């Protein structure tokens, strides 16, 4: 199996606080991996560091997109990271509230298209063609994420579960090889969580996108993940298959007080 994301020795300091402490992590092609850990462990900070939103204090982030050369991406701006094929969702939903569902997804196509101001004003053949492609591609993704009945709704008017799915749809529109999901099930009801489980599996199997997700819902994590990383105080304290993890005393200790089998 090819490693598609390799993180070495990643460290992030906020003033005196060390949010990430020499973290190593990798993701291989075609897997669903999960990061778990108590609140404040540094999981979101990890995502922010590898997607260019924060500039890590130390360490390296390397990607090897399928069929492409290995590349160092730390220090790149977030948009360059996305162009290179890693797209993410946010823990606190960050949609474009006053744009329609379709437009939200169309934004994801931005980095895969090219028409500029002059094209937009003259609206020549190539611009029209590109525009049509953007719309069709986006609509197709909405169908895959079962949001197509909401195309023209404003994002802010969507129910919570649909907003979470829209974030995933928007990230998929950038055609990533690796999708980073930050607590995709947060705030969902059991029914919505089941649908999410199915959606994530489908994304991996049908779109051949690998997935790295942060999640607190242990049932979802256990049923979906091929591998799990456990973080605490900015460090990786364990990694392995779901079975290894629930039997690992270190993990149980870190979670003391939190019900891991819930």
């Amino acid at each position, binding site marked *: 199996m090819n490693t598609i994301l390799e993180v070495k020795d990643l460290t992030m300091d906020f003033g005196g606080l060390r949010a990430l402490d020499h973290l190593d992590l990798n993701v291989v092609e075609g897997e669903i991996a999960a990061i778990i850990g108590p609140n404040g462990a540094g999981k979101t900070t990890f995502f922010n560091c590898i997607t260019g939103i924060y500039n890590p204090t130390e360490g390296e982030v390397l990607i090897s997109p399928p069929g492409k050369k290995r590349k160092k991406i730390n220090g790149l701006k977030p948009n360059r990271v*996305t162009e290179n094929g890693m797209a993410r969702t946010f823990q606190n939903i960050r949609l474009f509230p006053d744009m329609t569902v379709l*437009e939200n997804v169309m934004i994801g196509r931005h980095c895969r298209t090219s028409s500029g101001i002059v094209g*937009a004003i003259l609206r020549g053949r190539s611009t029209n063609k590109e525009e049509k492609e953007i719309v069709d591609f986006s609509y197709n993704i909405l169908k895959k994420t079962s949001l*197509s009945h909401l195309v*023209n709704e404003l994002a802010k008017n969507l129910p919570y579960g649909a907003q979470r799915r829209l974030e995933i749809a928007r990230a998929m529109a950038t055609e990533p090889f690796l999708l980073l999901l930050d607590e995709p099930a947060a705030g969902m009801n059991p029914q919505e969580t089941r649908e999410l489980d199915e959606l994530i599996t489908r994304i991996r199997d049908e779109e051949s996108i690998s997935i790295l997700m942060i999640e607190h819902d242990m049932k979802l994590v256990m049923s979906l993940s091929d591998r799990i990383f456990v973080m605490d105080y900015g460090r990786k304290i364990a990694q392995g298959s779901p079975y290894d993890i629930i039997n690992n005393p270190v993990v149980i200790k870190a979670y003391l007080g939190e019900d891991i089998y819930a």
Partner: protein
Amino acid sequence: MSFRDDKIQEIKKSLLVSIWFMFLTFPIMVIRVNPIEKAVEWRWENMLVVGIGSFLLSFVWRYMLKKKEAGEKRAEIGESGNTFLIQKILEEPRFCIPLLITLTIIAVAFPFIFSMYQTNIMTTALMYVVLGLGLNIVVGLAGLLDLGYVAFYAVGAYCYALLNHHFGLGFWSVLPIGAVLGFIFGILLGFPVLRLRGDYLAIVTLGFGEIIRLVLENWNEFSFGPSGIANIDRPAFWDFQFSLQNATIYLYFLMIGLTLFTIFVVNRLQNSRIGRAWIALREDETACQAMGIDKTRTKLTAFALGATWAGMVGVIFAAKTTFINPASFTFLESAMILSIVVLGGMGSILGVIIGALILILLPEYLRVFSDYRMLLFGAIMVIMMVFRPQGIITNIRRRYKFNE
């Protein structure tokens, strides 16, 4: 009886507000001193006006706040907000087409029916429509609060005035130069400041705007200082110079043309790849970047494009008034254009047009308003932000149809 108690409570509240405002405005509104003659003028009638006015307004204020809160609740459970009558009319082709035809006829006939004075006012109003639409790209679409917009207007105006004064260049050759110069200035000023956070950006652009004005005021060798530049040529048609009256009409139609062109361009832009990126940037910068949009570049295009339009209108302004000086390019001018955008509705083309027409024409035709013009602009900004931040016309996003 609780209904009556409510009423009494309301009246009590308003009375308190009224007393508070009479106290608050007492020194400024009632007393006027003349320090030279050591005389004091007491204007008690003003206190009465303030008292009654604030008593009544406080009812309206509370009523509107309540209404807005109710509206927010409705929006939360997913009901769409109230659309305005105009919008409903415009969506209905049955009304829309005759309306457009009537408007076209009025617009064409206007200078031949009304006096030159009226035509001039209309031309000015159209200039503000275009300025508003230009600023709308920056503020309304891309969400960048540019408080120094007038700087680019000044660049355009001085560009024509100086080129005309020194080299005798005509209007038509300078118009594109003004636009390009506006664009270049937009890039130059925008590049260093656009990575700043929203409110800092506002202040920096304000600072740039004032610096440009102060330089124009003090650099006599270059800009002729506060006395400005006079005898700028009116636009000609090839080599043909118009009489004053025909020049006015000519300028009017020129502005109609530019307005239509601007509407066309902005309309195409806002539903394009770039336009969507601007709006996304306005909505959430971080998410926008994470979705692969180059923040700096996208902001810069919006900023520079807005500046281009200001540059163009600047050239026309110089040609229309034939005299310019730095006093025309103060912060208040930027604020005025901003309040047009705020009143009309950020991001809405129709809104900005209506906003500009209201704010420019109203003070011209109703003398009452003309003295209180700037007071009105200030109040509008506050009131709109408090009660209707989306402006009088809400921008409606394009809907797509799919047949399955």
